[in-house]
């Protein structure tokens, strides 16, 4: 095979791999985790001064900020107070506030309403309570449930909460974004869940290595062998059409 073609293929593939690593390093993300509730519909309307609590949220990763999914109908939304409670004891461990004025709508991506609550370590379960600290109502968005027993969202203050008939989507964020590249070990551990028992994070490291190294080498080999086969049949000297 002409050297230029081999160099182009292997050099190009190396550049692609380097560019992919650079892209992973530049792709910085704040997401710590979400509670896995889909933002399908409004599950509760929070009037001024009213409070709703999403109960028993497992803390998968440490976080500093909380973004409850809301719908203000495109109008400026009210300020929200967000409290983090230890699920077992009900003790308030962190409190934060999201400034008013944000505009959100279901199914229209936009800047979320975010409250900085301070560092919460991973492990255990929390309740996340949202209080409308403004003068306009706001809708909380999540997924409706058929039975009240399936609802983790309660409306009202103190211990007299009533089920809201759904669950609120909550997104937990880090204080500062981190590169996706440094998240890869965690990402591959997550990817290995709900897989056959033999699959682990190592499987994805192996696949990444195979893609980065073996695939370009196999393609280069295929090209070399194809070129050689044609040469052996005397095709490489022919510049016109096929016989």
């Amino acid at each position, binding site marked *: 095979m002409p050297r230029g073609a081999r160099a182009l293929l292997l050099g190009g593939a190396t550049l692609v791999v380097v560019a992919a690593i650079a892209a992973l390093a530049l792709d910085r993300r704040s997401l710590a985790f979400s509670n896995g509730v889909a933002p399908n519909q409004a599950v509760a309307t929070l009037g001024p001064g009213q409070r709703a609590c999403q109960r028993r949220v497992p803390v998968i990763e440490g976080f500093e900020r909380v973004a409850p999914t809301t719908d203000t109908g495109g109008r400026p939304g009210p300020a929200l107070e967000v409290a983090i409670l230890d699920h077992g004891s009900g003790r308030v461990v962190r409190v934060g506030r999201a400034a008013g004025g944000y505009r959100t709508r279901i199914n229209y991506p936009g800047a979320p309403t975010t409250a900085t609550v301070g560092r919460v370590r991973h492990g255990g379960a929390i309740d996340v309570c949202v209080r409308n600290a403004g003068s306009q109502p706001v809708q909380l968005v999540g997924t409706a449930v058929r039975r009240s027993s399936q609802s983790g969202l309660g409306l009202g203050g103190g211990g007299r909460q009533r089920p809201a008939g759904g669950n609120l989507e909550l997104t937990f964020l880090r204080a500062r974004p981190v590169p996706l590249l440094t998240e890869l070990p965690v990402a591959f551990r997550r990817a290995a869940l709900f897989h056959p028992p033999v699959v682990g994070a190592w499987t994805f490291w192996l696949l990444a290595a195979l893609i980065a190294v073996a695939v370009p080498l196999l*393609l280069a080999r295929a090209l070399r*062998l194809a*070129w050689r086969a044609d040469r052996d049949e005397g095709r490489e000297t022919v510049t016109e059409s096929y016989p």
Partner: protein
Amino acid sequence: MDDVPTALWSLLGAVLIAGLAWALLVPPAETPDEPVHVAYVQILAEAGHKASRGPRAGHDVFSTEQKLARRLSNYEAPIYRPSVRPEWRASAFARWRERQRHLPAGARRDGGATNSAGGNPPLYYAWEALAYRITAWTGLFTRWYAMRVWSLLLLGVAVVATWLMVGEITGGERMAQLPAAALVGLQPGGTAISAAINPDAGMIAAWALVLWLGVRLLVRGPSVGGVLALLAATLVALLIKATSFGLLPAVALALALSLWPVLRRGSLSVRRLAAPAALVGAAVVAVVVSGAGDRLTRALSGGGHATPRGFLSYLWQAYLPNLPFQTPVRNLAAFWGYDVWIKSAWGNFGWAELLLPAWAYVAIAVGCAIVVVGAVLALARRRFPVEAGVLAFLGTAAAVLVLGLHWAEYRQFLDLHLSLLQGRYLLPLLPIGGLAVAAALANLPRPRRPLAISALLVALFALQVFSLGIVIGRFYA
């Protein structure tokens, strides 16, 4: 072994690695309609009958086992919801394993009703049921991934068939076969859908087989074996998805063109016609029994006020700016052709919510345009000689599929004002795309072709790598 050259083995190795990454990296259910296809395979493997579109007493869409998996892995919530992630907790995985272990045997057999895929013919699902049965002693997710990997093997079939098809046309020129087959094996849309549980994976393979065998018949001339093979491959395609009815005009054309000289000579005996005729008869019976015909009828009928003029107007608007006198088709995308042929067919992952950067689609579109123009030039200049019959066969297959899909979508616009067509429905035409690449390369002097093929392979490799990176970012970070 001369028929299976080492260059092809190397390409298949690369395709398999990339496909395995897709199969294992994408979370369960995060490919189009995968949950209902899994439900179809499960009822076929467990109870021996197709899933049904209608209700069945004691049956739900999903089995108790699949519903448990859905709930504990949270696989449904992220569908169409980019902010939502699948379950990330190892404890949830452990809980699912524990609960799955104690499910009764009947928990696998109470699904398969009111299944939106229930109208599909059963052959692809029967193929997948083999992997399901082999791993029947494992948990649902092991079976799920086994089925994905099993489905991926069909992409290998498409790669080999494309290699052979181009070989028939070029007299076995490896430097034409390689880029054509590489396009089929490494086009990211094709890899993603082939590494999922979806009959479109079977369609890509079956159409590649039909296209190869049709070309073979036209190039080599008729033989009983060749005719039987083409008919058998067509039957396989029909039993995978009703869209394969689009192949029938092309197959009929290939048969007519190849058999015409024999018929003119009068040398065709009744005895030699017996086997193909029997296969055609069996095909008709199989298609009727499988329900593929019903599916096609449903797809092409209805839309009471559909008219040829309305259809032509819709076609125009799908690809070109509206003319002042045309009634706009409601909800038809402004750049429909670009959206479907480029964005959706090349890089539209998950449940179509995962996209490449906009500039990447522009680059792909430019590349496709260069290939199309280059292929036309090569054919016109006889740099890449293809018999007229072969061109007619391939052109008919492509045109009927595209027009058939457009007709179905036109009707859907009339009835529901919704788009129907997705790029993956066009992926059975990938082998023709591969042939176009080989033809376009023929414009270059032979010493330059290795460089051009290298550039193509690097581009396909880059698309694979960055598409997989997008998947990681979407679901796991």
